[in-house]
């Protein structure tokens, strides 16, 4: 069929049982139309001016001034700060302060990976001590090495792929899937909007580090609680707490679990995936 246009397909039950269909799929037969890609919003605004297609003769001295209003992201939120890449910009053409026309422009923004020094600096800045709470008596140091290794494990310390789109989890093919992992620390939607984590590498690093820190705290708190119930249970070492944290980061479950007598710790038999993940980062 030829576009642009709309068509209907009737899947006729044809006097049989019930009509079922599992998928509808579309392919363009003569290759993709090249879409313009814009590296920043000012170019998108420029495109907005172009597409308004103002013709005719202007009076001398009249200034064409597009008013860049907002960018609407995939989840519908508005972000005037330029952190959102997708999808539409609304520009209004003003002549001498008066609105004349408005149009919505679709565009892609492509991301660039930060320089190595810049990323390392950001990763270093989020390391420090993670303490238990509420009283903060026990702490575990999150070294730069751990944070770097975690970023390396998750994404190869890469926020964007070669084509400028965010790094996705291995099972995803669509950037616009509402679920899935994004960017350097592979943050997913359970932590809120993934748009900013997908496109803003600094937010991704900050949030990923915070997740690790929270995981360390969760480990300390958990051990504290267990030892209060079972005084014979020894404390974990800093390394073991970090193993717990890395395992939680990946699988949500602990690396170490108490033995049956509650006088020692054994590798959690129910979490081989999380343990393997932690061992890969912190052998």
């Amino acid at each position: 069929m030829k576009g642009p246009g709309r068509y209907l397909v009737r899947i006729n039950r044809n006097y049989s049982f019930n009509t079922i269909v599992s998928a509808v799929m579309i392919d363009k037969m003569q290759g993709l139309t090249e879409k313009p890609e814009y590296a920043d919003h000012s170019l998108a605004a420029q495109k907005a001016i172009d597409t308004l297609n103002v013709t005719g003769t202007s009076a001398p001295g009249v200034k064409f001034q597009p008013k860049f209003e907002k960018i609407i992201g995939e989840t519908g939120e508005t972000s005037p700060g330029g952190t959102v890449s997708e999808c539409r910009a609304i520009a209004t053409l003003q002549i001498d302060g008066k609105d004349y026309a408005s149009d919505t422009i679709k565009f892609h923004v492509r991301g660039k990976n930060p320089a190595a020094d810049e990323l390392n600096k950001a990763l270093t800045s989020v390391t420090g001590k993670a303490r238990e709470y509420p009283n903060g008596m026990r702490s575990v140091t999150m070294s730069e090495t751990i944070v770097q290794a975690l970023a390396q494990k998750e994404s190869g310390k890469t926020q964007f792929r070669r084509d400028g789109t965010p790094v996705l989890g291995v099972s995803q093919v669509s950037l616009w899937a509402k679920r899935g992992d994004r960017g350097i620390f592979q943050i997913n939607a359970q932590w809120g909007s993934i748009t900013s984590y997908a496109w803003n590498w600094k937010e991704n690093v900050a949030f990923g580090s915070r997740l690790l820190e929270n995981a360390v705290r969760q480990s300390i708190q958990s051990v504290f609680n267990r030892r209060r119930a079972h005084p014979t249970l020894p404390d974990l070492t800093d390394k073991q707490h970090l193993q717990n944290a890395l395992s939680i980061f990946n699988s949500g479950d602990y690396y170490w679990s108490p033995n049956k007598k509650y006088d020692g710790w054994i590798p959690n038999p129910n979490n081989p995936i999380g343990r393997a993940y932690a061992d890969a980062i912190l052998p």
Partner: protein
Amino acid sequence: MRQESHMTDLRSNIPANTSAAIFIFLLSICLTTSAGSNIGNEQTEKMQEISNKFITALTYDNKGQLWIGTEDDGVWVLNESNNQKLTQFTTKEGMGDDNAYAIACDRLGRIWVGHLNHGVSVYNGQTWTNYSILNGPVGERVFDIATSPKNDDVWIATSIGLSRYSMKENEWTYYTRANGLPSDQIQTIAFDQNGTVYAGTQCDGLAIGTILEDHVIWRYLQSEEAMPLNWRGRGIPCNLINDICIGKNGDIYLATNLGLAIYRKGGNAWNCIRGKDFSDKHKMRFRSDVSKQPLSSDSQTKRSANLLLEDYVTCLAEDESGLLWIGHRTKGFEAFDPVNKTVLLPPDTKDNFFISRLLVAKNSPLFIGTCGNGLLRSSRNKPRRTVSSEIGATPFPETNEKYPAFPTPSKYPPMQEIALMMAKIKSCSGTFPKDTGVYLGEDWTTQGDWVGRYGRQYAVLCATDSPRNHDVAFFDLGYRIKGDIGPHLSGHDGLRHWIHWLRTDNPRTLYDPIIGYRRQAEWDDHGEAYSTSFEGPDVWVTIEVPEGIQRISFYFFNKDGHEGANRYRDFLLELKNYTTDLKKAHFAPVLAHTRVHDFWAGFTRVFS
């Protein structure tokens, strides 16, 4: 002529060697006594070893052995003269796959088996050899195989047209729409005594091919677009042809979704006869004004007599007395006297088998293949070995070799020929006008592994996030897909979003890249809540596409198609121009169409 009924006892078939066999026997007794078929004062019995199989093909070989094709369970051979011995062949023995949708025996005694997505396999009496689309038939899915009585050529009906293997030249020839066929989807093939080939298409009527020295001239026979309103009439009742039977006297019979079509040799017209459910279909069809289209008085007064058990005719076979045996989808089977145009079996038969194949030969029992109830054998005559001369085939040739040679694989076209073809394609400068559509074909091989092959611009995995879908797509390219239920429905019915298996490794289920595994889900029109005589509700899909020529693909998988009424699914896909009013769209012209049935294996239908 009303016949009496009997129940069947299978005690003579007890395999007494193992307890397991006894259990099977007891189960068989239960099944048979509850579902045994009665043909007059004759009896039917079930073949125990294949009692629950889906029989898809039946034929005799030149030695009189019965070859039985099944869905998922390979091929079985029944040697009636050797203590009813059954032998099974599957992929382990070298077949292409374990689905045998067609079987034929050629003049040399070789057995040709048509597969789901592996072309054909040929058995020479010793081993199997598979011929795929690279070295054999043109399509991977085979629907029927038949041999020409004139020159013994083997003809194969596939999803991409007809393939012909010349016994004389050992060469393959292919016939598609490019050669004049009305459609590539050939469901069934038959020959008359002159060698004229009759190809029943899945939804484009009958193609009749006159075979000349170096090519075939095709003529079409198609029905009116609308369903006929009478219980009998002129022409063929519909274009959905399921089987062809050519009688010994030259009469031609077509099994269709809307009854039986009959052509008398020497006559000047086709006639049709409908099933008992025709009037219900008439009443429950979707129409704008009911009062203007009443049933004809002829239909109202005579419909109780001489109607088939059911409109849907699945298969046909003629016996030596000229009786036509007719298989149905939900009502079992019956006999029809073509001379007097009378149905010979009582309409109150208790059997509701889905009959897939009927096979009858002189002095042999009637074999009845069913979908899900295995193979039935009617003891209308005492079974005995049927020799090849009685079934119209040449006796097994006397040769020095014990086993005949395999057919010659098809030759790859030389590079020069390919280059010429490519140049011809590139030189095509025709335009593709707007508001047109073409049916491209079907794909039985890809099954659930669609990523990268289909939906590169947009894909909707129906209901995988029920009550929503998973859209695997770039949303800003201008594509949009929306599902809906049709205008002819009951109350406030709506489109169902149904997840059948939350997670599965079945390769026939589509992989869902958003969740990272396969999930069987689909849109469903809730048709199970309506009579099978009701027109609708149907699933309607609105598709919006941006500039350019677009390819639209639909994936169907009858995942529960071996259970209950799910076996009956048989759809028509109709591409139409867009309108906001589905009632108008219902009656709007069809731009392209295709039929979807027998999709237990899952396959893709493609429009452009």
